[in-house]
């Protein structure tokens, strides 16, 4: 894979194929743990590590697994990495582990991870599967942090635990409660959709302009010749 492709492959997870905003995968942890930016980031990174581990292992053993039992095999690989992350987080970041609670073991049923194993890692090399996992994992972390940050600013008047003047005295409590998760994500997705559309329209216009100049350059000499 050329360097340019690799870069595109890496960037897709953030915008054009963002698992949360565009593909709408992994909605449960996205809504469940994003009451603050730190929780969102922690959950995102935990998921990214599991995704990286499972993508690499699936890409390594893809030729050894019989076609018919591949899904159960993938699930066992993913569940092992989740157990590792679960125990590691319980030992080193107990506070965050307690905050995320049930959603840590539930990484195992996060559709992004099984989805990437099935759709990407089982058909590609270890290197490109690593890039794919990093792209999707970090894109997921980015989306969760953005949503967590938005909800924390609006609902608690703080960002990463640091209070913001005025906002901290006038929090809109609903945003850190469950209904706020749905509403905030709805508006974020609408914003991302609009932004994506603008980018596409601009790209199309640029392409058309370029085609027009090229056409002009081609026709000019013939005009001169006459």
């Amino acid at each position, binding site marked *: 894979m050329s360097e340019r492709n690799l870069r595109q492959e890496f960037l897709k997870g953030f915008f054009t194929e963002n698992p949360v905003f565009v593909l709408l995968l992994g909605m*449960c942890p996205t*809504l469940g743990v994003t009451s603050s930016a730190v929780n969102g980031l922690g959950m995102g990174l935990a998921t990214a590590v599991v995704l990286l581990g499972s993508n690499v292992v699936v890409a390594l053993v893809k030729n050894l697994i019989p076609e018919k039992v591949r899904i159960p095999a993938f699930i066992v690989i993913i569940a092992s990495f989740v157990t590792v992350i679960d125990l590691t987080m319980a030992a080193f970041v107990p506070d965050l582990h307690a905050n995320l609670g049930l959603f840590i073991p539930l990484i195992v049923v996060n559709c992004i991870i099984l989805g990437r194993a099935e759709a990407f890692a089982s058909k590609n090399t270890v290197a490109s599967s690593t890039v794919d996992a990093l792209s999707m994992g970090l894109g997921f972390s980015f989306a969760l942090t953005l949503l967590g940050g938005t909800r924390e600013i609006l609902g608690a008047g703080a960002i990463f635990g640091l209070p913001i003047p005025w906002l901290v005295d006038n929090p809109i409590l609903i945003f850190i409660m469950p209904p706020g998760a*749905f*509403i905030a994500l*709805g508006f974020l997705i609408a914003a991302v959709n609009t932004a994506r559309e603008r980018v596409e329209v601009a790209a199309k216009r640029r392409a058309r302009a370029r085609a027009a100049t090229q056409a002009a350059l081609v026709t000019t000499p013939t005009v001169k010749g006459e």
Partner: protein
Amino acid sequence: MEYLVILISALLVNNIVLSQFLGICPFLGVSSRLSTAVGMGAAVVFVMTMATIATHLIQNLILVPLGLTFLQTVAFILVIASLVQLVEIVLKKVSPALYQALGVFLPLITTNCAILGVAILVVGRGYTLGQGVVFAIGSSLGFMLALYIFAGIREKLALLDIPKAMKGAPISLVTAGLLALAFGGFAGLV
């Protein structure tokens, strides 16, 4: 009485979809028509109850006596995956029409985090088998209720004139948020 409290709490107050955020994928994916919502809900009620019984027994008869509780995640997900496979095979034989409607979504029940989530919650809270079953039934009925109401709203939503940017997922999420707000009214019921 105690069972009733668990049931009401799981069904309304701590609704699994709207306040616990479990099972959001099918909640958003299968809720565009009332008929599929009912089928999916029924499948979840059945699978969740079976899965809770199975995982409860495995936890207390195998994992705890042998000191293997760290295998919980791996063991539970495998049990649930095989159970879903079983339901799929039975449904294919017994009710081909329902299988046709749910065919795509049944395998997805494996990755429905509500099933695994409830199994882990039941074990984590130290419920007895009876309490666990009641909790599973309450949770899954809560899932069905939320899915049914939401599908009803979305059928109406399809006919409305919605701003372009909000079409599809965004308006569904905002609707779900308002529904969650309404369910907030049940707080303090038990």
